[in-house]
């Protein structure tokens, strides 16, 4: 069944359980999304009557195992791979950790390769893992520079590769600035040198095709809650034959790569949410893109000293991100929340200690710009009215934030 997703049609909105109990308009779909009701429905039996452990011999176990296997097939179908190439994890970060730690440990054992290349604009799940692997586990780390849009250029990767390189990790789409990386081109460069490529597709999976054959990646991470699935479940694609040591040891679940009893209802939820995302990808993109474009236009037009961050075109269709000169991004978020708009920022810190994020710094932005970042991300429930209301309120709030506090370089 296909759902109408026209901006006027209210059915996609009605289809979601997210209760608008708060009178705050949600514009932070890159942080997380509400659970798709059809995914919730699919999950429910596995909390109650179908509670079995997939590893058990009896019929309860078989029922649960069948659910996990079916989910794996569904995910493999969307990713265009074999189901034994899918490992379920607890989240996108765990998938990133398994990919990086797993490949590096296995390759050091096998060939002695120690180098890891990753970009300066990665999510912390990758960058902090890379730092620890370098600081505490004896691996060599090289940061790949990004261009002014936060993009990793294939030439940059090519220049950095050596015969000691074990793994390259470059995100598919950036969570803070929405920029999409040329993953296929980077994969070509890596494979010519016989190096494995991992991509963190956590932010990308809600809107971009996640066809691993087309992307030609060796490992790819996803997390369900970014595409209307539940929090607390993710998956890692591992191309058959890729050396990988388990990061979590114990029982033989997940092909011996990720011990621990599978979280059956959440795995079922991930698969259903991903299936629907793939099925409705075009419609969802067509819904958010014009809204996003309108929002970007209005903001850049009406807020003085504002800039779009990330690539103007090669970016996620629901993603808008800005910097405003001389604004404390934290304060702007506080004012926005007070005015009824839930957004996010690259310098957001709940303890009021703003520092520009690594991504903002990697873009080469001066501090007085980098501190004033704002991320506005739309979802299937976003409406033209919401974008209009936001666009109306933002210029005044930026002005207010500037007058309350002069942020200096």
């Amino acid at each position: 069944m296909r759902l109408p997703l026209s901006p006027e049609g209210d059915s996609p909105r009605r289809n979601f359980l997210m209760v608008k109990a708060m009178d705050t308009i949600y514009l932070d779909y890159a942080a997380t999304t509400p659970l798709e009701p059809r995914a919730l429905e699919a999950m429910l039996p596995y909390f109650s009557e179908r509670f079995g452990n997939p590893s058990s011999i009896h019929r309860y176990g078989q029922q649960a195992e069948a659910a996990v296997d079916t989910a794996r097939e569904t995910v493999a179908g969307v990713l265009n791979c074999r189901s034994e190439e899918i490992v379920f994890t607890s989240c996108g970060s765990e998938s990133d950790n398994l990919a990086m730690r797993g490949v590096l440990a296995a390759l050091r054992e096998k060939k002695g390769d120690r180098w890891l290349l990753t970009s300066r604009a990665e999510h912390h799940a990758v960058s902090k893992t890379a730092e620890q692997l370098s600081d505490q586990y004896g691996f060599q780390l090289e940061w790949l520079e990004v261009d002014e849009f936060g993009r990793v250029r294939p030439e940059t990767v090519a220049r950095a590769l050596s015969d000691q390189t074990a793994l390259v990790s470059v995100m598919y789409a950036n969570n803070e600035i929405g920029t999409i990386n040329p993953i296929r081109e980077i994969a070509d460069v890596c494979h010519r040198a016989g190096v494995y490529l991992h991509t963190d597709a956590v932010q990308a999976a809600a809107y971009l095709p996640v066809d691993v054959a087309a992307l030609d990646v060796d490992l790819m991470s996803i997390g369900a809650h970014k595409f209307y699935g539940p929090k607390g479940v993710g998956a890692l694609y591992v191309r058959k034959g890729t050396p990988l040591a388990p990061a979590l040891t114990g029982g033989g679940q997940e092909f011996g790569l990720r011990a621990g009893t599978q979280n059956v209802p959440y795995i079922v939820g991930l698969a259903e949410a991903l299936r629907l995302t793939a099925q409705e990808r075009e419609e969802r993109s067509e819904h958010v893109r014009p809204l996003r474009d309108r929002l970007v236009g209005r903001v850049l037009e009406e807020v003085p000293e504002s800039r779009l961050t990330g690539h103007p075109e090669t970016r996620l269709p629901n993603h808008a991100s800005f910097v405003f000169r001389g604004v404390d991004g934290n304060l702007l978020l506080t004012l926005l929340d007070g005015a009824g708009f839930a957004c996010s920022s690259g310098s957001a810190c709940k303890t009021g200690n703003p520092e520009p994020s690594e991504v903002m710094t990697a873009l080469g932005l001066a501090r007085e710009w980098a501190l004033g970042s704002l991320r506005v991300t739309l979802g299937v429930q976003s409406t033209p009215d919401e974008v209009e209301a936001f666009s109306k309120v933002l210029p005044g709030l930026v002005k207010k934030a500037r007058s309350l506090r002069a942020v200096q370089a």
Partner: protein
Amino acid sequence: MKTKVVVAMSGGVDSSVAAALLKQQGYEVTGMMLRLWSEPGKEDSNRCCTPDAMALARRVAARLEIPFYAVDAKEIFRSTVVQAFLDGYDRGLTPNPCLICNRQVRWEFLLDHALALGADYMATGHYVRLVAGEDGQRQVLRARDRSKDQSYILHVLSQEKLARALFPVGEYPKTEVRALARQFDLPTAERADSQDLCFLGGEDYRAFLRRNAPGRFTRTGPIVNRAGQVLGRHQGLAFYTIGQRKGVGLASPIPLYVLEKDVATNTLVVGDEHELGRSELVAERVNWMNGAPPAGPFWAEVKTRYTAREAAAVVEPLDGGSVRVCFDQPQRDITPGQAAVFYAGDRLLGGGLIT
């Protein structure tokens, strides 16, 4: 529309209960907490805004189901409060940073943020009472719990600020505030009261001065008595406070006290207990709670330190925003840089900085 109040939260029991009471009274309450300055590398020891204190304030807000925001005030706190603290010691004073914090950070910077967020009022957990006077002006009264009264610090507020202020815990004794915290099931109910200056992190201020203004305060000089006799050498005037006995470093058969710090000659004057005490002081930059100085001299009870007992005195307004205060009895701890604060019974009249 409900009346909106921003509560300045600290992660302590008083501001938590203030928020809970206002919520119970039907206000639309929002919590805000200042992220203050700490010395680089000592961010975890600031008494009021450590990550722990902020986490606790956040838990309180969640418990009360109110929104909560942290506001970055590091730069303004450093450039006003900390700077004035260092400058004050430079000028031979014993500054009281809480006064500056309340005037410039809490009741200006934070209040501006609260108003920007659409608040009608800002509340704190201070122990004072606020009542409407016959002329429509707001009068500050000492807290019901005299032992917790904080009106001394709030003498810096103008009528304009007071019109925006709420002090919900001022009517309660501290024990009852703790009991209320338990009743409201607040995680801060058993949290110890804070005592010292927040940015000192429990440390002696002398070490802070040495680290943050090296060389500035360590100019040694003579220690003399009233007769001008040199008794020894001091380590730098900033390291001594009027009335101080311990740590002066003189061998003497009778206890000697710091009487005076003469910045012009870099001299520390000491004497015995009988020499301690003055009957008169001049205070400057006086703030009158009702906005204007009285026409002439008047009797008042005057406090010369936050912890001092009030003493009877005649307060005489002088030109240029100063007053002369003449006490009935000599006062031991009159210390330049601290505030002299005037009361008529429970009512706060005003105060200024002792010169």
